[in-house]
């Protein structure tokens, strides 16, 4: 549980310190003209960004708990590590490139280069789909070599962690598909830009999660 505890400690400390800083020296019962003028929003960002950040905290909690369970279960005697297919390195490459492509698209979108955005979106999406396809092939390789889900907890965790990560990426691709359609056929460039900004964050997050998971699988 150490992993989860560290993550939660970080997040709870961040939340509480931030809230305390907002509240520590305030005497709310004293009338305060400065407070009267304060806008209600606590953070100078778009609400959707806050929503996404909150969701990323939830998703991180989920992955941290899976990792905790992994490390706890690993200590049992029947743990037999499984070989990581080399394909995973290639898949990692796809995901890194997808993330880079999204970052580039984001830069184009902010500058308003709509045609570059269209291309950038397509490239990011295709790279992400290649990652997913690569993961599926890795699954097939492993099960072809006799490493089934139920034959050992190490295998079970491998399939489970990659599946959960893949499902998160699929969710991202749904949003990607919507913004791509809008970028190619729509008119609302403002909405597309926001969507790209959020997706970029999300893709970086999923890349980070994948690097951590892959590192964990390699290290054990």
């Amino acid at each position: 549980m150490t992993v989860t505890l560290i993550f939660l400690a970080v997040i709870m400390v961040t939340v509480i310190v931030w809230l305390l800083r907002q509240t520590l020296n305030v005497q709310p019962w004293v009338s305060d003209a400065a407070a009267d003028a304060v806008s209600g929003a606590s953070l100078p960002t778009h609400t959707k960004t806050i929503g996404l950040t909150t969701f990323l905290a939830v998703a991180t909690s989920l992955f941290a708990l899976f990792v905790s369970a992994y490390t706890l279960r690993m200590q049992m005697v029947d743990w037999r590590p499984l070989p990581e297919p080399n394909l995973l390195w290639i898949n990692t490459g796809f995901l890194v490139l997808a993330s880079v492509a999204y970052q580039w698209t984001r830069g184009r979108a902010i500058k308003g280069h709509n045609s570059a955005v269209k291309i950038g979106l397509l490239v990011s999406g295709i790279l992400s789909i290649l990652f997913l396809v690569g993961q599926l092939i890795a699954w097939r390789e492993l099960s072809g070599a006799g490493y089934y889900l139920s034959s050992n907890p190490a295998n079970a965790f491998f399939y489970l962690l990659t599946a959960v990560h893949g499902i998160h990426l699929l969710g991202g691709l749904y949003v990607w598909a919507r913004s791509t359609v809008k970028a190619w056929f729509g008119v609302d460039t403002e909405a597309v830009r926001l969507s790209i900004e959020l997706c970029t964050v999300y893709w970086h997050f999923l890349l980070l999660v994948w690097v951590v998971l892959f590192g964990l699988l390699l290290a054990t």
Partner: protein
Amino acid sequence: MAYVAIADRDHEQEHHDPQTFITKYVWSQDHKVIAIQYGVVAIFVGLIAMGLSVMMRLQLGFPDSFELIRPENYYQFVTMHGMIMVVYLLTALFLGGFGNYLIPLMCGSRDMVFPFLNMLSFWFYLLSVIILLASFFVPGGATGAGWTLYPPQAIAAGTPGVDWGILLMLGSLAVFIVAFTMGGLNYVTTVLQARCKGMTLMRMPLSVWGIFMATILGLLAFPALLVSAVMMLLDKLVLTSFFMPAIISAGEQLSYSGGTPILFQHLFWFFGHPEVYIVALPAFGIVSDVLATHARKNIFGYRMMVWAILAIGGLSFIVWAHHMYVSGMNPYFGFFFATTTLVIAVPTALKVYNWVLTLWQGNIHLRVPMLFAIAFIFTFIHGGLTGLFLGNVVVDLPLSDTYFVVAHFHMVMGVSPVLVVFAGIYHWFPKITGKMFNETLGRWHFWLTFLGTYSIYLPMHYLGFLGVPRRYYAMGNTDFMPASAQTLNATMTVAAIIVALAQFIFLYNVIVSLRSGKKAGSNPWGATTLEWQTPDTPPKHGNWGHSLPEVHRWAYDYSVPGQEQDFTPQTVPASEVPVGRDHGVTHE
């Protein structure tokens, strides 16, 4: 992105007024309608769970008298009662119901920031309830694994519902967690970003603080339940061995090997303990507002109350293993978890002191919501203090898994929050419906519920001292229990039936008051918070008419010296307070 001024933020949200009955009341994106939908469904399943508890009490009070309550059924009732009450009633009602209704109104916003997601949240919740209830009707019936669903027993032979019931339970929980996450993202973001001008964090009513912190806890803790549910599903369906060691079932070796049931317990309680506070923190917040309003006094030590909520929220993640003192985990953990558990008592006790001190030197109007709120203080003190027994690792040894535990958590997590639920419903009923409830019926409901529940759970602690184990379908004859213990059980059953019947007074009151209650003004209690300052009662879609409110003071300006009225709404600027003619005689 550039900072957007508050006036512009009002346009970030789109508010198409719903046109048809369907979009207004069914596929509604209005937080108030969603809140009511959540509330109605939660109370409906709560009634089912209450019925199950009556069945259990009948068996315990009068063993072997009812042909319809077989041991399988009993364990199914235990499981479903627990899970429904904790998750599908209390969590859903406090956050989906009260949270949805109060956050936008108390913060001065037009709606939740993601109304569509909010609507989806309700429909996922309803789906999870339907899946859960469906498990009664599948072959083998609902799962009888106890609400903690501990493996291996939850998915091994010898437990009712091991084929379908457990699958539906885990599936339903997964759907519920998705629903909760969609709602939770809304609550957090709305509190952070959609407050009206002048509503600084420290001007927020404690209800919002409680719900806000509870939502953060829920968002971080529910994944633990999801993780354990997914892993258990895999153990059940594809025979992985996450939690399942090599075991024998019905005389045969199963193919599992090496898994560890303790891992599940860690994951479950990593969710399960914060879950206690997911229910308790909103209750803390709501009761604070009810007490302040009806005592005509500011909440005492507001800042301490806020920090206590933050401290409790933070600490609630490092106490989980106090549910596992006798689970066989490394016994040295006991030192750490006993310490953290008793430390959490300090901020909790401070909250209790501050509630009592809020009444001190107040001007207490004992209306129905206030009765419930004060009764909550009483039961919560009782439940909190018994928690100090169970949290202290060595005292837990004799008491763990006995009726003392059952009595403790019902007092602190059942009776107390439910009293707050009623305090809240009676308090905001005039705002939600525009009608006053019937005061006499409300009082009957209060007295029967309060005295009835206390006479169930006070004696129950003593069965625990005696050593009566929980989750026993029948005690039978034992060497060490006096026969009078059974008489006590029968008495508790009678009390439970009275309490259950009393809830129909409440339902009747709601229906009668809705149809023919006296029309309520916009602010019948003389409250300061924003929800009572809406232009319409009940508030219309968008809440605030043409322009958003502006806040000029904290939420607790009651009986401010030198002001004419004994309350000053948050929207009144300093320059507009009627000053001077202060008739009132201040106590002392």
